[in-house]
């Protein structure tokens, strides 16, 4: 097994099997790190907790819901305003967060009464909102409050409201992934099947594992609508609580982030016979093939093809402008879970960059299988990386850019490695054809930043050019380009706007007359 030994982790032998390099002749049966195991205490891992996986990642993107955490105030505060999952109802779920504010006396005497009072207060404060999710925390789990019973009691007394209970305390699992799992299963067990939707199309899908980061969901839903498809629900970005209770009525589950949401797709398949189609919203090739598959499923592949042709013609020359300038640049692809496989091959094939390393904070071995499968030979794959390993890897690999989270990005900055936010994006959305160009543009701007170049100069030692008073990205990137490519009329820089989502919200869509009568169930 081609394990990679980090010098900094020689003293913790348990780490040995968590990093591999896929060498020549290696495949997944010989190169796969361990994954999703308990974290080594004190290793300064980047992992979060199961509560955040449930509340912060999957729960809160649901837009028309009061998201209340039953516990002390910190869990709530800490997982509030650190994400960019927007919604078309003025970001209600981003703006408001609720804690029952459990104190010492509640720890001793129980906090169920406090919880009930909180629920009533919150509904009173927001009279237009009738849906709520309650999140257990470490404290409320350990004192054994029966949150389900309190929720049932309130629903009995207030028939107009509906409450979902998610029991995923912070300690429940090796990482945030434990919470993804728990909230998936809780949702299908408690809520799916108890609302019957209005069916408006012959083609009905759930869009699953999509969190509307900077508008990703709205970009993808735009394509589906242009194909005449009804997106019954989105799990969960920009998703509506009641729509998600009707997930059982879709014909197809279109799954994006399998890491966080394959559980519910698998259960829907078992319980309701709904097939699961895994797709990629990132990358021209993968996205085209994804749209085509959804089209094929419904026999409307011509509509998919029309979109693919139109979008490719519009955006490909811009993607290729960046590809010419990003060729051979080394990337550390260090996200949380799914982006390592969503992006690994697509950025290599379509932007020309070399993925020298992938890592996953909270992924499982299944994510590493996909990620490593999509990498070229020689890539270093790390499971549950820690601070020192990341530093050692960056020093060894000398990447030109790193895609990771906000805080690790600050670590990279000090090594003079530019970073892009892999979770929240820099200037997203990154999904869709235009989004993919936006991603390429951000990578390009990161790598060829004139200010970044200055950080390599030591004014006390180095010769300082007195002629150069400024540089542009293009002056730096085009130095080694052939005249033909540099001045190509077929290629162009990104021409889109800073903000692209509002226009989608105001769009009208073609009416596709139904072939057969729709059953209103």
């Amino acid at each position, binding site marked *: 097994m081609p394990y990679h030994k980090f010098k900094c982790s020689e003293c913790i032998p348990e780490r040995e099997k968590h990093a591999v390099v896929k060498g020549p002749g290696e495949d997944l049966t010989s190169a796969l790190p361990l994954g999703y195991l308990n974290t080594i205490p004190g290793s300064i*891992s980047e992992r979060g*907790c199961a509560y955040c996986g449930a509340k912060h990642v999957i729960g809160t993107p649901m837009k028309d819901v009061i998201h209340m955490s039953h516990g002390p105030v*910190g869990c709530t505060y800490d997982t509030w305003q650190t994400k960019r999952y927007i919604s078309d109802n003025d970001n209600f779920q981003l703006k408001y967060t609720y804690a029952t504010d459990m104190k010492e006396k*509640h720890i001793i005497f129980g906090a169920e009464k406090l919880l009930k009072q909180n629920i009533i207060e919150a509904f009173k404060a927001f009279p237009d909102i009738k849906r709520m999710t309650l999140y257990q925390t470490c404290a409320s789990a350990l004192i054994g409050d029966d949150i389900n019973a309190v929720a049932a009691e309130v629903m009995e007394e207030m028939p107009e409201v509906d409450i979902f209970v998610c029991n995923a305390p912070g300690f429940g699992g090796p*990482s945030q992934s434990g919470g993804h799992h728990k909230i998936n299963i809780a949702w299908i067990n408690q809520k799916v099947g108890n609302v019957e939707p209005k069916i408006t199309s012959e083609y009905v899908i759930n869009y699953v594992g999509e969190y509307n980061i900077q508008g990703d969901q709205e970009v993808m839903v735009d394509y589906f609508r242009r194909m005449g498809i009804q997106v019954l629900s989105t799990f969960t970005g920009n998703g509506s609580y009641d729509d998600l209770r009707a997930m059982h009525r879709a014909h197809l589950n279109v799954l994006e982030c399998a890491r966080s949401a394959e559980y519910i797709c698998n259960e829907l398949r078992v319980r309701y016979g709904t097939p699961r189609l895994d797709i990629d919203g990132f990358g021209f090739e993968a996205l085209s093939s994804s749209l085509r598959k959804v089209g094929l499923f419904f026999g409307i592949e011509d509509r998919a093809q029309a979109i693919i042709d139109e979008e490719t013609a519009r955006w490909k020359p811009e993607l290729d402008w960046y590809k010419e300038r990003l060729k051979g640049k080394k990337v550390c692809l260090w996200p949380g879970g799914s982006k390592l496989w969503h992006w690994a091959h697509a950025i290599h094939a379509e932007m020309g960059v070399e993925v020298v390393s992938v890592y996953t904070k909270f992924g499982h071995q299944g994510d590493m299988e996909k990620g490593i499968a999509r990498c070229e030979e020689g890539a270093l794959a790390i499971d549950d990386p820690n601070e020192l390993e990341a530093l050692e890897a960056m020093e060894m690999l000398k990447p030109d850019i790193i895609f990771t989270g906000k805080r690790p990005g600050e670590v990279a900055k000090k090594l003079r490695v530019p970073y892009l936010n892999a979770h929240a994006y820099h200037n997203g959305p990154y999904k869709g054809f235009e989004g993919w160009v936006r991603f390429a543009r951000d990578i390009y701007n990161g790598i060829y930043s004139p200010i970044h170049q200055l950080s390599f100069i030591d004014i006390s030692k180095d010769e300082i050019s007195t002629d150069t008073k400024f540089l542009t990205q293009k002056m730096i990137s085009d130095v080694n380009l052939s005249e033909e490519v540099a001045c190509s009329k077929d290629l162009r820089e990104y021409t889109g706007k800073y903000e692209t989502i509002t226009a989608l919200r105001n769009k009208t869509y073609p009416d596709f007359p139904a072939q057969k009568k729709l059953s209103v169930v």
Partner: protein
Amino acid sequence: MQCEVKNKERAGVINPILTCQPCGAQYASIGIKECIGIVHGGQGCVMFVRLLFSQHFKESFELASSSLHEDGAVFGATHRVEEAVDVLLMRYPHVKVIPIISTCSTEVIGDDIDGVVLKLNNGLLKEKYAGREVHLIPIHSPSFKGSMVSGYDVAVKDIVSHFAKKDKPNGKINLFTGWVNPGDVTAIKHLLSEMQVDATVLFEIESFDSPLMPDGNSVSYGNTTIEDLTETADALGTIALNRYEGGQAAQYLENEFDIPTIIGPTPIGIRNTDIFLQNVKKMTGKPIPASLVRERGIALDALTDLTHMFFADKKVAIYGNADLVIGLAEFCLDLEMKPVLLLLGDDNTSYPDDPRIKALQANVSFQMEVIMNADLWELENRIKNEGLELDLILGHSKGRFISIDYNIPMVRVGFPTYDRAGLHRHPVVGYAGATWLGEEMANTLFTDMEYKKNKEWVLNVW
């Protein structure tokens, strides 16, 4: 018409103003050199606090977790603290100080972190790390008590009491800054240096604002040394700028080592800075130099241009850490403004006894509310449903949507201020802080006048 002090009436919290105790303990921990704290609890208690610090400072700080998982929550997890200490010491050979910070989960399950520290001191440290200076400091900061403010206060006290040891007088003063920014430390050290006063500043966090260097250094760090902390027992006096952030540690030094102690006032605004300098003078016998008279004059000159023309009668709401809120309110009053709503973000029951709050009650002649245990809904609800009209909000970034949604200009101040660039670099204390705050408020109001076309032409001839 008067100042009314009361508690939030609702039981729960909608949009909290402060986070919980472990965050405060972690903020203290990162101020110490060669120190990495271990938070005993779930991983989120560390990961998100590190994220919060990195949002505020645009820097990364090192903090470790004992990574409490299910088995630990059921059977106890002190062994994970032992492992964490060992792993940390093995991999970070420079580390000398390890605060062990408890959380709600590990307090509820009753993990005995003092016992673990004792065990490690007598076992692992003697056997495996003999000859290495290592300090393990248990800090009890359960999230279900107090807030990040009390967590900071408790941690500073526990850290100081661990190290403070009487030797010979060092002629310095101890200066507890409270929960401030690097810019504040710079401003305070400047004042002390002008007065030629030698001080141990707790904590030395100017180095949080770390550079991007040609050789590539990797992390931001605090710079308070073990020696600094040890010497606190030898000081000629202690000044704690904030009552609720460092006050306990100051009190401890006074009780334990008879060190003369002055707590407060938070030196925000001209008057509070005057008092601070007066206190330093009293404690050290050093005169206030002409240079500071001049500096004060520059600040007064700047503020005089603004007060009755622009600030007079402007209604302000202020939220955040209590010391900061009170200091800002006092400054606003001197600037002729009306701080009509003060939101103190935790349930400290001693707030009503704070002489500064009593002074507000005794002297304010307009309607003013001080809400204890407040959340941001106390502010928003008053604006949205109860007709509160405001000209300005002073507070941290978590309240940004109130400003945005209700079109009320807001000056970011306190912690965290992630939605504005570089604020940690600017002081709010001292004369420099008074000038910066005053001008920031004015410029914010000016921008708002222009944006709303509300007498924007006034500025033509100002």
